[in-house]
């Protein structure tokens, strides 16, 4: 599945300062859909190069990291349960850097 990931608010520093990534992610075996929960694990494994604790805490994003799926706050779409589709755009923004 083709997805676009965008990092902002300083999170891009965790992945070689690249803000926008075009990625291809498979739906996990035995599942019908790719959820944000699956995708977060994929991102932290494949895109985050350093200090993963700035991005992930437990099984979700670190508090203070905002997530938008197709420019909609993921708190409205079910957070980890949000399902992703072809061409979706996922944005992660840290609120913790800088004033």
């Amino acid at each position, binding site marked *: 599945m083709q997805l676009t990931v965008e990092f*902002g*608010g*300083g999170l891009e*520093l965790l992945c070689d300062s690249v803000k926008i990534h075009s990625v291809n992610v498979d739906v996990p075996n035995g599942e019908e859909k790719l959820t944000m929960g699956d995708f977060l694990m994929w991102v932290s494994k494949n895109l985050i190069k350093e200090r993963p604790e700035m991005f992930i805490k437990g099984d979700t994003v*670190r*508090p*203070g990291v*905002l997530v*938008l*799926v*197709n*420019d*909609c*706050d993921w*708190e*409205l*779409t*079910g957070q980890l349960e949000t399902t992703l589709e072809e061409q979706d755009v996922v*944005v992660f*923004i*840290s*609120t*913790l*850097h*800088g*004033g």
Partner: protein
Amino acid sequence: MDTGEKLRRGGGRLCCICNDRRAALKRPKTLQQICRECFYAVFEEEIHQVIIKNQLFKPGERIAIGASGGKDSTVLAYVLSELNKRYSYGLDLFLLSIDEGITGYRDDSLETVKRNELQYGLPLKIISYKDLYGWTMDEIVKMIGLKNNCTFCGVFRRQALDRGAALLKVDKVATGHNADDIAETVLLNILRGDIARLSRCTSITTGEDGPIPRCKPFKYTYEKEIVMYAYFKKLDYFSTECIYSPNAYRGFAREFIKDLERIRPRAILDIIKSGEDFRISTSTKMPEQGTCERCGYISSQKWCKACVLLEGLNRGMPKLGIGRTRGMSSDQMKNPKPTGAAKNIESKQCGSLDF
């Protein structure tokens, strides 16, 4: 699948204010689901109400916005210039930035402020540590290492901002401190039992007895909304960590607040409220203000803290004045004795540079 598909995001939920457009975010303060347009409207209107209710500005005043190039001050500059036009506040707005001399950090963020100057049409004044003190932060860190640099940063920045404000002849400085910042400071003041600062740190206007008052129009504005606003409006801000910001203690307090917010978003406003309500009458008196014999800046001691620190740097004894002291008289200078007073933690950590 077509309409259903379009409405899939946001669970197909409509904005609870206009009932027309698709919701784009959940407000932490109210848990309302609202669309972008309604979000812009309520976000700006709330700040306007805070300004009016607390009489932060008077018509004809000159106001400097402490501009770091970061999210808070960038959004503040944008929103204040919008509100100033929309509601005819009659303010002359300026951007005031401090150049600490941190290569690869401050020079980059100053580029952002220079773009903001053009984008928002606000005149910009940059004050540098090098000009004011003869030292850049890079040079200071080279001398003292990474351990105490935030003491220098904090003391020097506070004074630099006042000097810049005096040069601009402004009546007041507005800073981008948001609700999360204030909740964090309340918590830190509780942790260190600093009752005097606890009640003061929640004041929306401070320093009315000092050279130039400061105010915080974002006192009740959540960081999440500031970042969402900047993102949706595509405002140009800078978000790299300061390379000299090792304040782990403050970092933990911040994380704790974010954890609380996740469970109960109102926690941030509640913490501010408790800070406000802690108006315990104690014998804790803030020291009387005089002026520094050396540079004329306000000081409760013979020399202001910046002069003490500078003296240490210039004499090659940078440890002078660091840590548990609150400024020293020149007698004490010869024979420094710690007084056990707490140092100021009202400003944000060095890295965020929001004064």
